[in-house]
């Protein structure tokens, strides 16, 4: 699983470079994210703009990342396309669970407030 990462101040920007986040690659994605957290990256913005298809395994990997960070930091999402957005709305994880932003600027602004 290829993930492009870069730093914006103290925030880590992670962009999975895959078209799908599903049962096939969600465990690898989760493992990468947990490693970033173990390296003390506790303020993370995930750019989902490349993801065209996500299933419940992808959601689970994101939830696991969110729970691993817990109250020690913050996770925000942006670049959510129509299909992935539909998945969030069906499961209502876009209401009170994940913080989803329109764009990178807004996502980083939210992270910087929490740092």
């Amino acid at each position, binding site marked *: 699983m290829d993930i492009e990462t870069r730093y914006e101040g103290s925030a880590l920007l992670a962009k999975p470079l895959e078209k*799908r986040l*599903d*049962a*096939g*690659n969600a465990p690898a994605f989760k493992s990468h994210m947990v490693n970033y957290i173990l390296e003390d990256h506790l303020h993370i913005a995930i750019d989902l703009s490349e993801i065209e*298809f996500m*299933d*419940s*395994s992808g*959601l*689970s990997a994101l*939830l*696991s990342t*969110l*729970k691993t960070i817990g109250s020690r930091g913050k996770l925000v999402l942006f670049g959510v396309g*129509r*299909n992935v957005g*539909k*998945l969030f709305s*069906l*499961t*209502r*994880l876009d*209401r*009170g*669970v994940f913080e989803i932003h329109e764009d990178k600027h807004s996502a980083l602004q939210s992270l910087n407030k929490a740092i």
Partner: protein
Amino acid sequence: MTIPCRLDHVHLAGHAIKGVLAETIKDSELVFLIELAVCEAVSNSMQHAHGCNADCNVEVSIFLCNSELVIEVTDTGAPFNADLLKNKQCHDPEDATCEKAAEGGRGIFLICRAMDEVKYKSFADRNILTMRKTIKPTDRDGEP
């Protein structure tokens, strides 16, 4: 189609249904939901029926006749508790807060939300999940 029980092969079922529907349904969100249901069903069979044993297979059959789409996912592994299908809210979205949100268990919920009818039967060492969806004229290409 027959797919070996490897989770990195689930996308093959997704691509297949997407290919079948590409020329039939113009609503890309509907195509996504059907692909989602198929992938959830296939990965459920691989994980829960066969324990991801790559020596086993999952069969996916797609029937499209006029406005009726029927997809069957068949495995020969351990049957699952069909009572889960009776409770469409088996993962209660109302309960979603960061602390309470379960990490998994949304597959059946998503299948039930995506399809019109979902049935499961287990007989003669075969487990068949049958998913039906009626394609409305407004969903189809070239129709008003």
